[in-house]
């Protein structure tokens, strides 16, 4: 009986338990949906937790305006297919409203600007809990963050003021103005997510699978999709490659990897032999400094 309860079943059970705690403890929760595999997995888990009822929270997408069109289309289809509420708020509108300086330069990133839009949408809907797909294996600062992560009214995370998290008791009590970020798949690794996607046959946007694409080869050797959002210079090395994306963030700072993998099975095989961790291979922004993620989290980032 329980001998058939595999580690993926354990991870799933924990995630569903956490999602139900969110529904039980909070007045106005939301699920932050990026269109990436982690948040698609979260939606799948949420359906398991609450069907045949409706999800007790809307899906919220912070649209940087730099997304891949395939991801936006997938997002809209997913919300329609499950009949769930989708709220989209655009970084562009925040920039205009708050007079912010847009990303600039060759690869203008709006990654940091997302935080402003996120805080706006939390205020607009008075969300008290935001469910996100972050995993502890992604990065060292995340490895220390709780599953229920308390944020003050500025969205700030204080690593020294974290609440101890015991057994599977989650303390989501907050004062007015504070909110909680909840990470139900904290204990999953990248490989676990892919194995689960395979087991559950979860549909993903096409850009996760190998396709031919025009790319810029950066001086560090990373491949960046050519989109309207980046500036091309005459000296740029342009290449046509068979690539897939391992994460689907902002198109200006999410690099592609060369890969012939066209199925989830192929991808799992690649990960098993891959020796470059996910964020390192594809995120330009984390290279900036050793404490980059810690700093962004303290400022209200996911």
């Amino acid at each position, binding site marked *: *009986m*329980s001998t058939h*309860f*595999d*580690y993926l*079943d*354990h991870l*799933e*059970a*924990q995630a*569903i*338990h956490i999602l*139900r*705690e969110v*529904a*039980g403890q909070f007045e106005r929760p939301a699920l932050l949906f990026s269109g990436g595999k982690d948040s698609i997995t979260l939606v799948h888990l949420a359906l*398991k*937790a*609450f*069907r*045949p*009822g*409706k999800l*007790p929270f809307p899906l919220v997408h912070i649209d940087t305006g730099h997304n891949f069109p395939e991801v936006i289309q997938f997002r809209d289809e997913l919300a329609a297919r499950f009949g769930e509420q989708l709220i989209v708020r655009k970084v562009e509108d925040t920039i205009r409203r708050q007079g912010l300086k847009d990303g600039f330069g060759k690869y203008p990133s709006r990654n940091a600007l997302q935080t402003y839009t996120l805080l706006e949408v939390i205020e607009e809907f008075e969300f008290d809990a935001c469910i996100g797909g972050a995993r*502890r*294996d992604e990065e*060292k*600062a995340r*490895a*220390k963050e709780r599953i229920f992560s308390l944020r003050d009214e500025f969205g700030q995370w204080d*690593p*020294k003021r*974290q*609440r*101890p*998290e*015991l*057994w*599977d*008791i989650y*303390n989501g*009590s*907050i*004062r007015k103005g504070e909110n909680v970020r909840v990470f139900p798949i*904290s*204990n999953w*690794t990248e*490989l676990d997510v892919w194995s689960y996607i395979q087991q559950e046959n979860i549909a993903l946007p096409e850009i996760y699978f190998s396709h031919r694409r025009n790319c810029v080869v950066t001086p560090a050797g990373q491949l960046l999709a050519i989109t309207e959002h980046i500036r091309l210079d005459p000296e740029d090395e342009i290449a046509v490659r068979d690539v897939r994306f391992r994460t689907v963030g902002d198109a200006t700072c999410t690099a592609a990897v060369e890969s012939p993998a066209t199925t989830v099975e192929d991808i799992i095989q690649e990960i098993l032999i*891959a*020796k*470059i*961790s996910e964020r*390192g*291979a594809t995120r330009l922004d984390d290279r900036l400094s*050793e*404490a980059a993620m*810690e700093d962004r989290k303290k400022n209200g980032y996911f």
Partner: protein
Amino acid sequence: MNILKFITAGSVDDGKSTLIGRLLFDSNAVSHDVLETLERQSRNKADGELDLSLLTDGLRAEREQGITIDVAYKYFTTARRKFIIADAPGHVQYTRNMVTGASNADLAIILVDARQGVVEQTHRHSLVASLMGIPRIVLAVNKLDLVEYSEERFYKIAAAYKELAEKLNLRNITFIPISALAGDNVVQPSAHMPWYLGPTLLEHLETVEIEPDAEHDAPRFQVQYVIRPKSNEWHDYRGYAGSLRSGVFRRGDRVVVLPAGIETEIVAIEVNQVQVEEAFAPQPLVLHLAHDIDVSRGDTIARADAQPAVAQDLEAMLCWMSERPLRPGDRLLLRQNSATVKAIVKSIEYRVDVHSFDQLADDKLQLNDIGLVRLRTAQPLVFDAYRQNRHSGGFILVHENTYDTVAAGMLETARTAELQFG
């Protein structure tokens, strides 16, 4: 493949982070780009050696002070098993973090420095391991390379630890001599200790039997959320969503809804929207009951012939985690999984001396203190003694105003409290 969750505990400079770094490094869980960063960071250090502890010391304050200040979770997989490590800090004021990591652990690795042997922190960590009911212990005697791989030194420390463990009723202890820095007996067998014939640390972690899940205990289920779609298609649907915390439920079981005490029957069990004949811990499920009764979040559903305790006067071991001491008369919120009740501290029976394990009279519990308290709750609590069921006997105390988590509690029955430290 199953999962082993373990915690590492030791004093400052016992080499915990190095040990974890070594496990990750030697089992090829460290990727090239992380290794590159590591090499770059290690170059900034005085001796320029590859510093494996940097793999876990993630936060800036830790790098500056050279200590680990919070629980870090790390993951690795071998052909045999998947591992989740909670790296608990050794620094004395952060003991609460060890309690946090210990609450979900199947096994604890307690590190001692071969030069120092059993020290005060070892007592504290072992006390926590005992209180939190961690089923298995590894005493890893580290830095054997600094005592010329002395067999005599290792056995002397092992003997001293056995004496300590006896006082705490700790069982299932495995002793392993290692050098995390040099790699002896962590992943690779040591060439320097021909006298040691046991497994390496990793071999032990891969093969040690994990305590069977709470499946054999009496079934306990707590309602987290009531699913009521109220749609045309599901007009009369009313399902109680929650996780089976221990034991097995079968369709047709006579059950009781607590604390109200109403008896009814399970007419359907759903797992992932499929009706099943039986479900087992820790599965998330949806229960349907025969009678239309008032059941809400936090209520416990148990089999009528195997009921938990229901009481308002409680006795519990507490680990106090707040800067502000706990005193009799303090009012707090008690959160036991999905149930929350108000509680008042009636008395502090004793505080445990973490070195001698003596019971000392005291009128307060301070940060990191452990002691037995009596509580009175506003509504009855449904529970088992923690020693009997880790899943229904643990709770946290929450400050009424800041909502900070200020204590971990392990419920006792009057009888187990007396037996505890002999």
